[in-house]
């Protein structure tokens, strides 16, 4: 078989950095393979991707050593255009990759650049759009598409080039769980039917493994630490050691001391066979089973019959009622466009609700301004770049305090504390632009935390974060929560919802359809289907082990995991 990508003792150093980002990489990818590259943030996995698709050195100059061959061509001799004929790239941010004013135009973009005749272009676009299931939507504008559909269009736009290699750079980052599943299925189909070589860069291991991959390449600190089949990698502790989260069912097996070697088809999350290892799981469950105690406290925020609509016709929020109690940690879940963000914006007066009442600690909030509400409830936006308006980290975190007229000494103390908790202290004198996306996110959380509100709403707090940072942020939020601050999170992350929140509010089409413990929500298959959530692999595991009470099994796992972390 042909070797599609070959790194030979390859090193790379960005122009603006003191040290190399990649060290002596040796990696070979064969034709038709499907390879997953995992690694924590800053491990060099994205840099590896940029080297493959030619953005290095085209957009990001630096110093290269060693050799890199793309389909047997020396990368030194390829410019970005010839690289793009070999490697098609689907980026993390589907919105930014969507350059056309409608679906057809976007898919055609590459053909347009190659001056393909208009008639022929329409033919190809139609064919490719059908491949990704977007054939009916050629006239739609990007504003009318869901995140998953945009991702599909981007894929189609790359496929018209007929490049033999497809590179996916964190394709799941902005998708809800069910949509992510569909994207992974689509990638798998392309791999099988089109015989493309597929490279996926992701840290959400469990979600990618929804469909099998041939190999996993583990990258950290610019080096390749492992390059093997998923099963072999699970058997080691390399993933955990490098901040990559194991699929939950594998983690549960590890807790229960299951001999992973004896589980058949371990890497397939629905088709594995526990064989004689069942007893170990049941035994572990019975010895670790704990009851979760419910906390009752006074309501902090009471929402009654909240309604909102942009155009007065289509309701975005439809009579939503909700209580947030003191010291609670709540997740708001549901598919993209279900009204999650709008609900939070209405709470903070970013949008004006059409009807309904908001009461905070017995005071009516309906007439309070954005600023007045912000003294009680902090809101952290999803995109950190939209919140940051200072150039230095310290000033950014201090800004809210300064606007409230607190003395500089006090500010310094508070800011430094917050920075330490957020793990940003070593960077305090850096310009914000030098930080990674994830680090910027932490800066914005820090800037709200510094104001010490009684309740914080976070829109996707951990989107795009690797497991280590995710745990750090969540542990940090948990510690705040333990200090009595109520925390409400909009999330697509089922792990987060299970692990950290005590209650889940499920929205669909602007209506609240459930308000229960996360394990109850994820144990209910009808609900999962309706709200575009994803069944946790733990409930499959419980079923396979013959454990009746799946919800209790999930709870047991979470309790155990918490005990494990501390």
């Amino acid at each position: 078989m042909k070797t599609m990508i070959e790194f030979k003792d390859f090193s790379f150093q960005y122009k603006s950095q003191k040290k190399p980002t990649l060290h002596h990489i040796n990696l070979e990818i064969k034709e038709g393979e499907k390879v997953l590259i995992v690694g924590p943030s800053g491990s060099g996995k994205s840099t590896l991707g940029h080297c493959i698709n030619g953005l290095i050195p085209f957009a990001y100059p630096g110093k290269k050593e060693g050799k890199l061959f793309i389909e047997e061509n020396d990368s030194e001799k390829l410019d970005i255009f010839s690289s793009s004929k070999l490697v098609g790239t689907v980026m993390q941010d589907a919105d930014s990759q969507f350059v056309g004013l409608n679906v057809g135009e976007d898919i055609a973009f590459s053909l347009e650049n190659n001056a393909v005749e208009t008639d022929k272009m329409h033919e190809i676009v139609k064919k490719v759009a059908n491949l990704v299931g977007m054939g009916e939507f050629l006239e739609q504008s990007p504003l009318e598409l869901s995140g998953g559909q945009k991702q599909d269009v981007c894929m189609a736009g790359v496929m018209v080039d007929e490049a033999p290699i497809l590179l996916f750079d964190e394709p799941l980052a902005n998708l809800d769980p069910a949509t992510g599943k569909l994207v992974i299925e689509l990638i798998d189909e392309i791999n099988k039917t089109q015989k493309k070589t597929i490279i996926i860069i992701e840290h959400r291991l469990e979600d990618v493994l929804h469909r099998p991959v041939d190999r996993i390449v583990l990258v950290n600190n610019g080096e390749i630490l492992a390059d093997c089949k998923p099963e072999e990698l699970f058997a080691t502790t390399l993933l955990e050691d490098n901040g990559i989260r194991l699929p939950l069912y594998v983690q549960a097996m590890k807790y229960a001391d299951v001999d992973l070697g004896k589980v058949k088809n371990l890497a397939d999350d629905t088709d594995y066979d526990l064989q004689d290892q069942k007893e170990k799981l049941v035994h572990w469950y019975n010895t670790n089973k704990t009851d979760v105690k419910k906390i009752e406290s006074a309501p902090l925020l009471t929402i009654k019959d909240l309604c909102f609509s942009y155009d007065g016709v289509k309701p975005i929020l439809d009579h939503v009622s909700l209580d947030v109690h003191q010291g609670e940690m709540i997740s708001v879940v549901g598919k993209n466009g279900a009204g999650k963000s709008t609900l939070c914006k209405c709470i903070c007066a970013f949008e004006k609700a059409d009807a309904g009442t908001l009461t905070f600690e017995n005071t009516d909030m309906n007439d309070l301004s954005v600023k007045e509400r912000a003294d009680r409830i902090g809101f952290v936006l999803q995109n950190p770049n939209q919140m940051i308006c200072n150039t230095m980290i310290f000033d950014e975190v201090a800004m809210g305090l300064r606007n409230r007229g607190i003395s500089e000494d006090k500010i310094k103390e508070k800011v430094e504390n917050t920075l330490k908790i957020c793990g940003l202290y070593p960077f305090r004198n850096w310009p914000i632009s030098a930080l990674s996306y994830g680090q910027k996110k932490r800066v914005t959380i820090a800037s709200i935390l510094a104001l010490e509100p009684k309740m914080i709403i976070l829109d996707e707090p951990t989107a795009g974060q690797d497991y280590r940072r995710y745990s750090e942020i969540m542990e940090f939020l948990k510690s705040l929560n333990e200090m009595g601050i109520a925390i409400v999170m909009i999330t697509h992350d089922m792990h987060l919802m299970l692990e950290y929140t005590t209650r889940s509010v499920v929205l669909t089409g602007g209506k609240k359809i459930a308000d229960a413990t996360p394990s109850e929500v994820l144990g209910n298959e009808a609900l999962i289907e309706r709200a575009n959530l994803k069944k946790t692999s733990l409930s499959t595991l419980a079923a396979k082990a013959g454990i009746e009470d799946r919800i209790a099994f999930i709870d047991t796992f979470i309790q155990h995991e918490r005990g494990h972390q501390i």
Partner: protein
Amino acid sequence: MAYGVSAFFGCLFGPVASCLIAAIGHTLNDFIFYGSPWWSWVVASAVSGLVAGFAYYYTKLDEGEFNKKTILAIIVINVIGNAIAWVLVAPCLDIVIYAEPVKKVFLQGLMSFAADGISSIVVCLLLTAAYSKTRTKTGSLDQE
């Protein structure tokens, strides 16, 4: 305000970019607010953008340089650019194309020169100052 932004992009990407931004911005703005572009002023905007973009050659914003020379270059270039655009190009084209009264167009030109000139310099300077702070010099980053 808008002229300051296009001037800022000029400092970053050069005259062609800022000329385009100013011209397209003005045309679209006219389309939205008046239904039809007032071509003479679109050309004037493009000229002001073009001239402002020459600041690109006198500044090194990409490398985080922001000093007296940068400020001076931006002020001088923007004054020249706005003067040519509003006191010369816009009124002359108004007379040639639209045959507008001479006194009126020059008065309008002078008013625009004052308003756009000042706002574009102030906004452009604030933005470049902020931008230069975010740039990092080659190989300068290390954790403390």
